[in-house]
């Protein structure tokens, strides 16, 4: 007698709440004011965006935060299965790029395309205070 092998469908469902820390808090609160903050690293002579506590290259502590441009250029991108553009964006004044959604037709986007942040009208206290980037 063959028996149907049993397969159990289960889930793991758990809530988390992350302390943002000074640098990320400053960054997110800056968004509500329409400002995008980066953190300059003196040793590397580079500005890291988004602002974060440690330099990704030298691991130095980053304690100062400065506004960078709210616009910049796409350094690379992809289009997902639903036609949404996900791009790496290097803002004016930044030495690093970060990923974000670009609300644009994929055929209008290429490497080097200039984009501008579109801030949410009623910004939540998360990175979604930027709704998306749009073609500048």
């Amino acid at each position, binding site marked *: 007698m063959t028996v149907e092998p049993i397969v159990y469908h*289960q889930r793991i469902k758990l809530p988390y709440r992350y*302390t943002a820390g*000074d640098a*990320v808090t400053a960054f997110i609160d800056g968004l509500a004011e329409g400002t995008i903050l980066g953190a300059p690293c003196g040793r590397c002579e580079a500005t890291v965006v988004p602002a974060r506590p440690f330099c990704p290259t030298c691991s130095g502590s980053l304690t100062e935060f400065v506004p960078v441009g709210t616009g910049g250029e796409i350094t690379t991108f992809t289009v997902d299965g639903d036609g949404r553009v996900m791009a790496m964006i290097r803002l004016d004044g930044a030495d690093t790029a970060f990923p974000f959604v670009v609300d644009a037709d994929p055929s209008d986007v290429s490497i080097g395309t200039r984009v501008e942040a579109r801030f949410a009208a009623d910004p939540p206290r998360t990175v979604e205070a930027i709704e998306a980037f749009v073609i500048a």
Partner: protein
Amino acid sequence: MTRSSAIVAVGQTDYAAKRLDVSIPEMVRESVDRAFASKDLDFSKIDAVVVGNMELFEGINMPEQWMVAALGGAGKPIYKLNTGGTVGASVAVMCDYLVKSGIHDVVMGIGYQKQSEGETQSAITTVGDPTWERSVMAGAIGNFAVMASTYVRMSGVTPEQAAKAAVKARRNACLNPHAHLQIPDLTVEKVVNSRVLAQPVRLLDMCPQSDGACTAIFAAEGLAEKMTPLPAWVAATATAHDQQFMGDSPARLAEMRSLQTATQVVYDKVGITNPRKELDVAELYEPATYAELAMTENVGLCEMGGGGRLIDSGATQMDGDIPVNPSGGVLATNPVGATAMIRVAEAALQVMDEAGEHQIPNAKTALATGYGGNAWTEALILKQERG
């Protein structure tokens, strides 16, 4: 042939219920910076990093990758371990292996957890097998309480004897500036009258939930002596695991098979036949009062069933003949991912003669143990003499 390795520097955060002033990477970095500051070290001296955590504690997958900037890790070998509650000790054993084997000369080991950011008990529940165990779990506390009831039945220990471990821990913690629960006026009466969590375990029988990180830096002979005056030589390590399912061990807390095995291995390696006499101090991983009593039996500080009599005798107090957990232990401080590393670090501080106000005089031989979800155990012997 292998060479000797030693812990040369230790850094600990200020443990607390909620460290809302720092993100996880910042918290880890605090312990790293303190380890560096203690011995004038920096990232350039570190060859590799070993990080210990359990992904579901904070819900960050590959956290070592995520916090690479905090670790000074870009371009360096970084190893990640997950062995549940004992991960800090697993990290220590791995650091020791990496240095002894000659693969790296200086290795930084870190254990951390921010309990305030997740649901630790629930996360621990996922160690349960999905088919057999996961739907019949009662959280770490409920599961533990069942085991404790068997231990109580077999040993005859009383709630008052167990409570003495809680009082000792929170009083010792007053001499440890990093400890979380520092309660100088705690009494046996307060403990036995505290709120019931799951019989026989009451609130004050149980370790706290803490946020914190602990870093220990391991170095090879030839280097270690230049980095600190009294390196804590890792004389022996052992790791042992019990059978697969939680019910496989007949009396899981009363007879901790993996702890007996691991400590016997390290005792044999260093030639200890009478641990009570030959150890100067022990940092045991006791998640609750009943566990401390049972562990003193299973590591051979007294006869099986004698944990209650041992604590009654005062022998495990700081001025006793075998102080247990002068740091305050897990009962005073418990950021689970860090907790076992804290045992190793505190044992190291003792033989390095750097434990400050909770220093046991003339501590030259220390035992540190870890204890993980499914009875995964590590044991380490640290000595002042290289041997």
